[in-house]
């Protein structure tokens, strides 16, 4: 198995915000995480991204515990996990190119891959534009490029189509599937969109914790 999640539960104080079923993903497996509002879809993606240590449970990616008991040694995280957040979260002070290059910088990989990747995503003439100068669709492609530039094994996307019409939603999902395929990454998409859910054979259903 490439990814194993066991007994994942997260609390804020006394309130449980996430209780996920155990699941495993093998090579070339993609899945959708679905559930009602407040069921913890974004929380689960944060846990899978390695930025939110769960109160209980373990995540193992390619044999490595994402949250080892002795503390968080997360230096390898940037090379193995790519995230396309719902709010995109681009750095306003950097150009599109630097927003992608920064992921290489932190992962310790070559930044030369950033420009060709943006070119492949149709942003060849927008590489020096700041996020504020880009359209929402362009920003989304920059965020996708940033997530896949290090060829991660796990690609996470949080509600990637929430603000898009039908055509654009399908286009973005096609793009995610394509880059995940090219990067040989597992794709996990959190969504409440039935159109997206229908594209995945594997679905992880979350329920609002009691």
């Amino acid at each position, binding site marked *: 198995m490439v990814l194993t999640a066991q007994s994942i539960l997260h609390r804020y104080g006394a309130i449980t915000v996430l209780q996920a079923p155990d699941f495993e993903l093998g090579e070339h497996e993609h899945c959708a995480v679905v559930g009602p509002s407040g069921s913890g879809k974004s929380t689960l993606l*944060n846990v899978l991204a390695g930025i*939110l240590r769960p109160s209980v449970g373990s995540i193992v990616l390619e044999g490595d515990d994402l949250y080892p008991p002795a503390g968080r040694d997360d230096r390898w*995280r940037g090379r193995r996990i790519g995230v396309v957040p719902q*709010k995109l979260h681009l750095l306003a002070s950097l150009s599109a190119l*630097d927003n992608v290059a920064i992921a*290489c910088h*932190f992962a310790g990989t070559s930044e030369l891959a950033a420009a060709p990747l943006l070119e492949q995503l149709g942003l060849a003439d927008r590489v020096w534009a700041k996020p504020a100068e880009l359209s929402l669709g362009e920003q989304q492609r920059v965020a996708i490029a*940033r997530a896949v530039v290090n060829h991660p094994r796990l690609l996470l996307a949080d509600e990637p189509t929430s603000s898009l019409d039908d055509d654009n939603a399908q286009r973005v999902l096609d793009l995610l599937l394509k880059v995940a395929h090219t990067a040989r990454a597992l794709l996990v998409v959190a969504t409440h969109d039935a159109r997206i859910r229908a594209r995945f054979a594997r679905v992880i259903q979350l329920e609002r914790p009691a």
Partner: protein
Amino acid sequence: MTAVGLVVAQMRRRPLQTVLGVALLALGIATLVFVVVVQSQLTRQLERDARNIDLVVGAKGSPLQLVLSAVYQVDVPTGNVPLATVDLLRGNRLVRQAIPLAMGDSYRGFRIVGTEPAFLELHEAALASGRMWSAPMQAVVGSEVALETGLAPGAEFFGTHGIAEGGAVHEDARYRVVGVLARTQSVIDRLVLTDKASFWHVHEGDAVDEAERRILEAEREVTAILVRYASPMGAAIVPRQINAESRLQAASPASEIARLFAVVGVGIETMRGFAWILVGSSLLALFVTLFNALEERRYDIAIMRLVGASSARVAGLLLLEAWLLAGVALALGLALGVAAVAVVGSWLAEARAFSLSASAIGPAMGLVVTVALAVATLAAVLPAWRAARMDVSRVLAMG
């Protein structure tokens, strides 16, 4: 994208805070550089000028004035004492050396001192060019005098009565320069030296007959006598012997300068304290700058964590930012401090007093660089620790 490039891009988002933080730290560093350099150079110079001089003998008056005028050449002499005092001291078995100084004239603000070759040995001065005087009205000039006035072996000049510029010129007494001294970084650099007999030649004029000549010779005086003891016992006995004489007083450079520092030292210590207060304020300012930067950039830092920056890496970036700010402040502070030393040095040079060199800041450099880096590191510790412990998912959710 380098780490420095990333930090600079972040700093450019809040230019005013960055500039103010750097400016405050630069001012603290400049003050520290100025105080440390001035204090260390003045102390060193005072010690060097008084080296090998155990006692100064001169006319009654202020002992501090006697030391300042005879050792450091920065005050008016207290008066003259009979030449016979020199022989009296040389006959004292507790005195190893007695060097007479005849003062009262100057050339373009530089004092002319009539003395003996032993005075040069006292200051370990060597000739850079020419030779020692061998007769009255021959002069050997210090390196600063030569540089400032252009006097060189073969040149001639007339002395001026008094130790300030603008006195009456002794037009009938022409000095001839026979040598120039190498730089010693002591008081001798600022002196025109000649045989003590030159002073009598200038001030006595010609005797009309042998009887008058004998009278003039008997009345000859010197301004001060620098004394070295033959044994430690001298310190206990010789000053008392001198002070028992009605016209004479003995002053110890070491105790007079200690007394001077007891007064002036308060000012120096105040300035030093002020510099440290400024450095402390800079520490707070830099801390506030970094802390505010962290608060403002929590979201950006969370994004960096999201795209793969480890917590140590984020802390490292904040530390790098602090060091970059400190580096710029250090460069500016050093430049400002050196400029201030150069300005004060030029004032002192015009007053023919102590010499301050802006280029001799070497010993202060280590302290200043250490202080700047320590301040930057201290200021960055808490923000870096908070950045490393940030709840990334919560900050992103709020962003």
